[in-house]
């Protein structure tokens, strides 16, 4: 079950550690909506300064949302096509792995 308010809060917290170049591309009204959604969440995140983003202890939902933000607001046409290919490929690999099991 996806807890949308927790993901919103996690994402907002981790965006504070992002370079302004990334955050500035996200529309203000989207961030305002995330803030509203996150109001009911009580989780806290702990950022480990020695680890890169991929290894941070954040939920899969938060990673998905950051990826979606990149896809929607930062990536150009060519990058979007590449990312979509990755998403489809990863999907296939996961299905194959499940079948073998």
């Amino acid at each position, binding site marked *: 079950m996806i807890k949308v308010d927790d993901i919103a809060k996690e994402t907002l917290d981790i965006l504070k550690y992002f370079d302004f170049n990334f955050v500035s591309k996200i529309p203000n009204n989207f961030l305002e*909506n995330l803030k509203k959604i996150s109001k009911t969440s009580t989780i806290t995140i702990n950022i480990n300064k020695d680890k890169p983003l991929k290894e941070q202890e954040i939920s899969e939902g938060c990673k998905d949302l*950051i*990826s979606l933000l990149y896809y929607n607001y930062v990536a150009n046409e060519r990058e979007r096509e590449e990312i979509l290919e990755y998403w489809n490929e*990863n999907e296939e690999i996961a299905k194959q792995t499940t079948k073998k099991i």
Partner: protein
Amino acid sequence: MEGQNKKIKEKYENVEVSQKQSIIVEGSTTNLDEITRREEQYRALVDFFKKDIEIKTDLINLSPESIDEYSEDSRMNYLDKLFTELKNMEFKFKEIAKNLNMGLQSENSLNTYFERATDTLSKLAYGYNRESLQEIYQKVFTDMKPELLERTKQTFRGYTMQGGLKAIPSIINDVDSINELLHIVHSSIINDEELLQSMPILETKKNTLGYDIILYGEANEVSKEIFENFPIDLDVGYTDIVSMKDRALMMVRDRGYALTIDIDSSNKGTIDVRYFIPKICNLDMVKALPGINTSSITQNGASGFFVSKEQNISETIFNFIDSVPTDMDIPKSETLTFSIDDAKSLATGRKLSNIKELFSEFKQFIKSKSNVQKLKGEDKENYDQSR
């Protein structure tokens, strides 16, 4: 030149001592050639702002009216007018370039631009697609592309190499309309600290950090007041105030990297203040600035506009400058940063079905929240009606 120098010499021999002293900068003296050069630069700058207003007025007056579309004759008359005005504007821009010594590359790039603009106008006016006069007018004269505005911010900023007039050729190929051309020329001028510093020097003082605060040009009441009251303990770098009859341009180093302020005092009683901040440093502080245009805030800077009463102007300007963030205001958390590349790298590891599911959950959540709010609204209505 000799005759001119003689005239200048005679002029300066007759001025009062205090005025002569105002031309002499501490630690150096200016010779007559330099005085002449600075005066010419000043006249060129004043002429630019005069032409800036003329061009803007011409653009407004050029707007088509419904009667222009009435018949084929009226349409042709209007189109002829557009060609004529385009040529007039070409003369004005070339004069600006010549006066300000923009250089051969900039002058050539202007030639190329106007050839392209004329070609565009011809194709729109006489091509197969019968464009409306309003569309032709907008495409050639007034449209402003958001991406051009962004590139302008990126290209023209003070205290960077090739950040002023010299940078015009690098962006002019992205310019379509006259309005866009005027915008880039304006930005190149007000963000060119070398140009501003080439004006005649009126007065100078140092702040407590040892940086010069210099008043150039032709003092007006507003610029004099700002210069004289400029607090020497205000935490700024080199500050240039270029004064004209009804206008002052300021460039303040080390506030937002190189804050530029355009102070227009042509309206009696009120003063229009426009500003550009090339480096954001602290987003929350920038968002709180008076008249900030929040949609203009990007990694390339931000701009804003406010109106001040004449009697409060210097206090307003100093308070404003003091509110613009510096490098010291960059939040500590920004030193631990994840970059755009980190987000991209993260994105390549995700699965499509999970992304879709997340998107759908968010949509449902937002929908259910707005339904609850609607219900709460209805309940409140019912409650109010029952009372």
